[in-house]
Structures are given as C-alpha cells and as structure tokens.
C-alpha cells in the first residue's frame, strides 16, 4: 500500500532556520530517504516553495483564482513523501524516523487511492 506522508510545519519557523541548520536537517532526512530508496519503497518526494508563492483556484463557476495557500493555518503544507508500506504501523514507523531527523511540526499519513508515477524529470 502506498502512503502519502504530508509534512506540515510553521513556515515562519522553518524560514527562520539558519542555512547551516537547514542543510543539517536535509542531510539527516536524506539518510532516512536513502534507506527507503534502497528497499525500493520510496516514491516521489517534494519540498514546496513558500506559501507566498502559492495560488489557489476555487472551483466555483466560474473558477475563482486567489493569491496564497488554500487555508490560513498555523502550520502549512511544506512538502510530502510517497512511501510503500505494508500497513499503517509501518507508515507510522517511517514518519517517526523522519520526525527524529526533523523534529517539530506534524505529519499527516494518508493512504494513497490513485497513484500515477508520471514521467517528469527534475
């Protein structure tokens, strides 16, 4: 089963990290990612640009385009992983590992319904 691990955190706080700290966190996260990748369990991973770069389309008729993220919340969606896990427990283990590498904020773990790996190259 594929699980999406959606990463929420206070964007202001992440934006206040020093460059060194940001690099350190990314390095620690890449260790966890490497492990999953070697097991063939790691799907797409994305770190999103700040919510100030976001645009929202409300699917009214006609659709309404708004500046900014979908909702103003204390913690913002900053990125996501797709990971192959046997069950929720295993997905939670992965999230815990990621959380150890990058404490603070929240992960939302959601089973993936439809998945198309796509073909975009970075």
């Amino acid at each position, binding site marked *: 089963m594929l699980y999406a691990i959606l990463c929420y955190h*206070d*964007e*202001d*706080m*992440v*934006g*206040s*990290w*020093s460059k060194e*700290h940001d690099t350190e*966190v990314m390095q620690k996260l890449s260790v966890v990612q490497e492990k999953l990748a070697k097991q063939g369990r790691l799907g797409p991973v994305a770190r999103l*640009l*700040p*919510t*100030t*770069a976001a*645009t929202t389309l409300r699917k009214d008729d006609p659709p309404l*385009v*708004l*500046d*900014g993220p979908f909702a103003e919340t*204390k913690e913002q969606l900053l990125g996501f992983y797709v990971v192959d896990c046997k069950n929720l427990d295993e997905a939670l283990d992965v999230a815990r590992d990621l959380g150890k590498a*990058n*404490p*603070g904020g929240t992960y939302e773990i959601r089973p993936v319904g439809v998945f198309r790996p796509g073909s975009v190259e970075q």
Partner: protein
Amino acid sequence: MTDTAWIDAALTSARPQAVGALLRYFRNLDTAEEAFQNACLRALKSWPQNGPPRDPAAWLIMVGRNVAIDDIRRTKKQEPLPDDDQAISDIDDAEDEIAERLDGSHYRDDILRLLFICCHKDLPATQQIALALRIVSGLSVKQIARAFLVSEAAMEQRITRAKTRVADAKVPFETPGAVERSERLVSVAAMIYLIFNEGYSASGDTAEIRSPLCEEAIRLARLLLRLFQSEPEIMGLTALLLLQHARAAARFDADGQVILLEDQDRSLWNQKLIAEGLALIDKAMRHRRSGPYQVQSAIAALHARAEKPEDTDWAQIDLLYGALEIMQPSPVVTLNRAVAVSKVRGAEAALEMIEPLAPRLSNYFHYFGVRGAFLMQLGRNEEARVAFDRAIALANTTAEAAHIRMHIDRLMRDSQPSKAKAK
C-alpha cells in the same frame, strides 16, 4: 535537532507578531521589547522541559504581558498612594480588554505597525534600517554593528537615538483604515528594499559579513507578503530581492573583485531562489496593476532567464526601463536604460542618451563607469580614460575602483602594441 536550535528559530519567527501585540497592549516600545525579552527568558527555561507550546507567539505574548504587568504593579506598590490605586485599577481595566487586544486577528496590523514605526520620515535611512533589524528582526546590536561595519557603541547610540525619535512621534494605535494601511505598506516596502540594498551594495571583502542583511530583507518581504497576499507590488518586491540575491555567489571573485553580470558563472546562481522569484512575478502579473517593484523584478527576471549572456532579451529590458522611467523618473533609471540601449542600438545611441544626465550625475560613480565603457566601445580611448579616472575618484569601495582600473589596464594594453610596432 538541539534544543537551542528550534527554540532560537521559534523565538525569531514569533518575534514580529509578539512584539507587535505587546506594543499594541503597552503602547511603549521599550516596555514591549522588555516584556518580550522576559518572555523569551522564561521560554528558554520552560520549553526544553515541557516541549514547545502549540502557538509560540501566543505563549510569548501572554507570558510577556503577565511579567510586565507584575513589574508595573511592583514598581507602583513602592510609590506612595494615591497613585497606587489608580494604577491598579488602570491595569484591571486593561485586563478586561485583553481578550480584544490580544486577539490574533490584529496580527497583520500589529506587524505592519511595528515595521512602520521603524520607517518614520524623520529618521535617516541608516537609522530606519538599524531600528528595524533591532526591533523587528531581533538582531543583536553587535550583529547589526558588524553588518554596518561600525563599532558596537556607535550602533548602540544610533539605535537609542532612533528609538527616542520614534517614541516622540506618536504612532496611532487604532486599527488603520484602508488608505492608511496601504500608505504604511508603501513605506515599509521601501524600508525593506533599503535593508536589502545595504547588504547588496557591499564590496567583495565585506559581502560575506553583510549578506545577512539581504537574507533578513527577504525574510521580512516574505513576512509582509504573507500578511498581504494579494498585493502585486509586494510580490514584485519579494521577487526582486530573491532574483538579485540568487546571484550572490557569483558576484565577486576569490579576491573580492566585482564580476559583471555578463561575466558571471551562471551555474553559481541559486536556482531555487530564481524559481521562487519567477513564480511571484507570474502571480503579480495576473493582477494587471503594474508598479516599480514589479517592473524591476521583471528586468531581473530577464537576466535570470538567460542561460548565457547573449541570450539576454535586451530589447525587452529597454522597454521595461522605459516603463520605469515613466513611473519613477530618475537619471539613474535612464542610465540603466542606456546600458540596454547600447546592446540593442549601439554605444553611440546610448552615449547620446546619457549626455543630458551629466549635470545631475556629476558625482555618481556609475555614470562615469558606464560612460567610459561606451566611449571605449566606440574606440574613443582618450575620452574613456578621462571618464574612468573620474569614476575611480568617485568609487565607493575598493572593489569598484579595482574594477575600473581593470578597464584602464585594458585601454593601456590596446594602445601598447601599436607603439611597440612603431619601434
């Protein structure tokens, strides 16, 4: 992550909102800052044991408020009656209002007010910047002094003076109306741009020390944009800063010499910052309400989009500078436009364009640098030499002077071989 790292990040990010709210509550900058400092001290004790609070800013505001009120009570107790009763009943009244005053919905105007206080018209630019870095960003006096290349004592004095002036200025604490809010936004945007330029105009040997100013300006611009999501000029400002800063690693060589845009190693440009800047320009364009920051960011974007210098769309840059000349007429804008014109229509046309600027830019380093370069392209080496000499005399930094000297050396070299042949 170590405790101190996340606490530092949490305190820094909560600072504008917390100090802004405390300022609205106490209506005094020193009290607000002190209350915040005290709240931070408590956070350093409490958070490692109890974990981070759900909402660090709210925690700091509540604790800061309570500590400050206790302090006021204590001081008042030591004073003789009847002031005592009066003060306490004032505080009780104030506490009744707390739900309203500390209501999170004020946070936009709180932060805007805090920034706006720093850009008071009577304050010279350097004091505005220093004050904003101290009060809003929470940089230490030592850090600010270092970035400004002055002594800590001098910076302390500058900030104290600025604070006194601001305290006398009586900034209104009522929620601003729409017109006032947008006026504040314009001043604050200008100040953020100043902070950025202070860091950006550093020379090679100080670039590293001063680049935190650029980073801080970007953080403040993003903060402002998050508060005012639909302001195309704030998108433009943020994009401009991101696109300029993206080139930071390529702007100086190992010896601290300036590397011109066309000679820069473009693989050193920060693609993530460029992507963010371009995304913001896309968003801003949709509003069809152009402005100077948007035009400048569009110019920066044309440079950022060019993989090689010869891919640069100079004709478009010429048009954009033309638009900027109408929005913000200034000889410096025309001078910049002339550089684009020289690429599109040649140095002759460009030189013609800048001749009338001479009286107004007679003390401007870049005027003579650009003029010398045009003359050199036209083979008028003697005149170029005169312009370059003048530029060196006006150079603000050693890197600027060194860069012009390089041109002069090239002129010398070009004239040397013919002499050699003559012998």
